[in-house]
């Protein structure tokens, strides 16, 4: 239990999903043009990651010990259908919450960050609480990276950038510099 804070900070900063594992790049580069949208997308992703951690734990404990080769198919099918089910539930119970993040749910259901979370948690043999904390750290880390990039992109809209570099090329270079900044966190812990 005492490694929980470590897992959280490691997923949040040191091994940030976007900036060091390159997971979830499609939404990171595609949807990060406004601060508000990226904050909401980040929130939705964190939520789906929590659901994923629970699903992965249940599958790992009860199903996949009997059939490890079904891991990938099981993860995808179960995560996608659980998220869809929760989406329906939110739509029914809280239309306001659904408007805030519902439209993003189908988009992120099986993107690589979500699936990556399930696979990493499995490979490292995380238990239930460890999985939850890991998902929380990864989700918040994703949100932080999204919001940082969105803020920089909003700024760059206002400045005079050569037409040639505009678009994905510039976003990638900004992401590279952000990633360099995040490398500074690697010294937070001694390697383990």
């Amino acid at each position, binding site marked *: 239990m005492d490694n929980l804070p470590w897992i959280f900070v490691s997923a949040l900063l040191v091994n940030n999903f976007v900036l060091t594992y*390159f997971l979830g790049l499609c939404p990171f580069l595609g949807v990060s043009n406004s601060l508000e949208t990226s904050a909401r997308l980040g929130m939705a992703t964190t939520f789906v990651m929590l659901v994923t951690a629970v699903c992965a734990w249940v599958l790992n404990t009860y199903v996949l010990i009997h059939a490890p080769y079904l891991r*990938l198919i099981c993860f995808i099918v179960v995560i996608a259908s659980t998220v869809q089910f929760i989406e329906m539930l939110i739509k029914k119970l809280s239309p306001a919450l659904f408007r805030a993040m519902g439209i993003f749910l189908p988009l992120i259901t*099986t993107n690589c960050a979500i699936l990556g979370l399930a696979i*990493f948690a499995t490979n490292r043999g995380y238990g239930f609480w460890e999985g939850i904390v890991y998902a929380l750290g990864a989700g918040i880390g994703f949100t932080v990276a999204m919001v940082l990039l969105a803020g920089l992109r909003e700024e760059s809209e206002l400045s005079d950038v050569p037409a040639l570099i505009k678009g994905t090329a510039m*976003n990638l270079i900004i992401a*590279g510099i952000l990633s360099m900044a995040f490398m500074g966190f690697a010294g937070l812990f001694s390697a383990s």
Partner: protein
Amino acid sequence: MKRNEAYNEFVKGIWRDNPVFVQVLGMCPMLAVTNSAINAIAMGMATFFVLVGSSFLVSSLRQWIPKQVRISCFIIIIATFVTVADYTLLALVPAVHKELGAFIPLIVANCMILGRQEAFASRYPAKLAVMDAIGMAGGFMLALFSLGAIREILGDGALFGVRLFGADFEPWVIMILPPGGFLTLGVILLFFNWFRQKKDEFLDDVAEAQRGSD
């Protein structure tokens, strides 16, 4: 005519519609595993196998896949091929498999593969679908290899582990670390933008000259 069509589908993926450099798809595995040329090639081969296999299967089964659940069917077909690729790599080259780690199963989330099924394989006969898949996967492999080679040469001073420069060469360690991936791909995309701009200008000039001579 028929041959031309197939050839066209093949060439399109390699250069004109290159999945990475032009369409900017499949970025996650693209950046994560390209810190050395050999990893890039292993990833490229695995993706090649998955894309060609699932395009063939989707295209052959397209009459029987109901429209409403087609995405789920595609994903299950892709996941099956990815599992096969995963276990094959584990059996044949355990060292590379260990290096690539979780990124082999993550091929399933590569948007390029699902995109080809949705946009091409589910609409065209198997032969064209396979040609399209070979072209697209070839283009993806080319992109992976060029990124992996650039990063390994600059970051390690070597290619496939063979040293290229003398002992004086100071490796740019940043290139094999995560930021190097973003920066290299950014610069390559910049080059492609420049190339396209030059080509458009050239075509404009040609059109201008033709109008002048009339």
